């Protein structure tokens, strides 16, 4: 039993099985679906012409991810963005970042 559990191969197989089943059970919302929840303030597809809020279309992936992490940790001050950022996992923030990075910036 002890030797079996210590086998790196078995550990790898077990880990792969856990990962794939978790992935199949909860694929999560798409980047586009999550990004749509931002549009009420940040513009449809993140394309905001004018206004107080940050346009998100065309934002560099790393910049979006860092902003969301900093909102969540409180490092970056916000009114409600800290609360909103708490609703998304790191993987989901990355998916949103990838979506916005692909959108042409500027007003729609």
């Amino acid at each position: 039993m002890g030797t079996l559990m210590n086998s790196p191969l078995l550990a790898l197989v077990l880990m792969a099985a856990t990962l794939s089943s978790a992935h199949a059970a909860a694929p999560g919302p798409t980047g586009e679906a999550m990004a749509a929840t931002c549009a009420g303030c940040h513009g449809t597809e993140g394309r905001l012409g004018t206004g107080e809020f940050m346009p998100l279309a065309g934002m560099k992936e790393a910049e979006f991810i860092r902003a969301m992490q900093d909102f969540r940790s409180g490092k970056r001050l916000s009114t409600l963005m800290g609360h909103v950022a708490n609703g998304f996992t790191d993987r989901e923030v990355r998916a949103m970042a990838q979506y916005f990075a692909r959108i042409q910036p500027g007003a729609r």
Partner: protein
Amino acid sequence: MLNRRAFLTAGLKAGAALAFAAALPARAQGPAGHVVVVGGGVGGATAAKYLKLANPRLRVTVIEANRTYIRPYGSSEVLTGHVAMRDLDVSYDVLKSKYGIDFVFDTVVGFDPAKKTVRTAGRQSIGYDKLIVSPGIRLMYDAIPGYSAAAAETRAPSGWIPGTQTALLAKQLKAMRQGGTFVLIAPPKPYRCPPGPYERAALVTEWMRRHNPTGKVLILDPKDEFVTDATMQLGWHRLYGYNIPTDYLKDMPAGVKNSGRPSPIEWVRAKDGGTVEKIDTRTLAVTTLQGVEKADVLNVIPPMQAGKLAFDMGLTDASGWCPVERRTFESSVHKNVFVIGDASIADAMPKSGFSANTQAKVTARAVVDQLAGRAPGEPVWENTCYALAGSDYGLFVADVFRLKDGKIAQISGQRYLPLDAPLAKIRLAAAYQQAWLRTFTEDCFA
């Protein structure tokens, strides 16, 4: 080439050509269909727009009674003269011209879920592949003894669905005698715009400080709590000297102390006898469990149910709201029919414009997926509402929602502005509230 032509000719002779010819272009370009949206409020307009964004080849028709939308969010600012009635008007022109959405300005009077058609008062029969219904709310004027729809248009306006009653209420407030009492009757849960009655009370109090300094605002409430209650009351306390009830006082920041002097704004909860038993619309006397209050201006926000259309179409259950399958908001009663916005039963989601807006997006995507033969993806919804305790004093509620065991659950934790928030954040929230009115309208209607 020859083969296809021969096939079409044969089809024509067989009499099946009409259907096939109609289907052919659609198949050549990929899947499409006709989605009819009933109701052009926040939910319906957003659904129509996002359907077109997801698949521009879809035919989308909105059936709406009014040619211009009057936005309810921010409409209490008409009472204080911060905006005019015409500032609430929202045009459907951009949805028509930019997205190619068809509008039929008419009322639905018939519905055949088996034949997938709706019939309008103008005698049009409109067929659909999928039907999205966003019927909004109905104000139950008769639920309060003494009150009525007629009284709401004359003596005691509601203005919870903006229009002539909003303008009337603004006029009555301006004409109120010095030192008079503005009584606001708050609604029981569930209702549209949870912080709304309390924001309205705050804005009226602020207005009176300048124009009727001895006047008073009295909120009579059948509830003991409300959304944003602690942050809103802290705002009232700082701005107007409101006396915070003891049970809320213990969580307030250090140094917050009631003066004990009478405050121009008072909230009478259910536990303090705030539940209204009847009103007399002639004398504006309001009878509660604690006694009789005489109003100079009476604003009644009555109990609510799903919009009348939802009842006519048989989409409601015994609660008076519409049960839906939570992932897509497809009606639990009729297949291929989806109910979004305030009228739907959405568990933890408040009945707000922002909720309706994100519900519309999830449902639009699900409808497009279903029409293309794909399974709808994992949903996510949001609600972020800024509210005002005064023109420069903002607060908010912010939520992210996910599907959890077949129900909609709030998963983002803390919802409100922290009670120890610095003044800079509070002022910023007020500025964002004004900005949000513009960006939100744009996301729904342009």
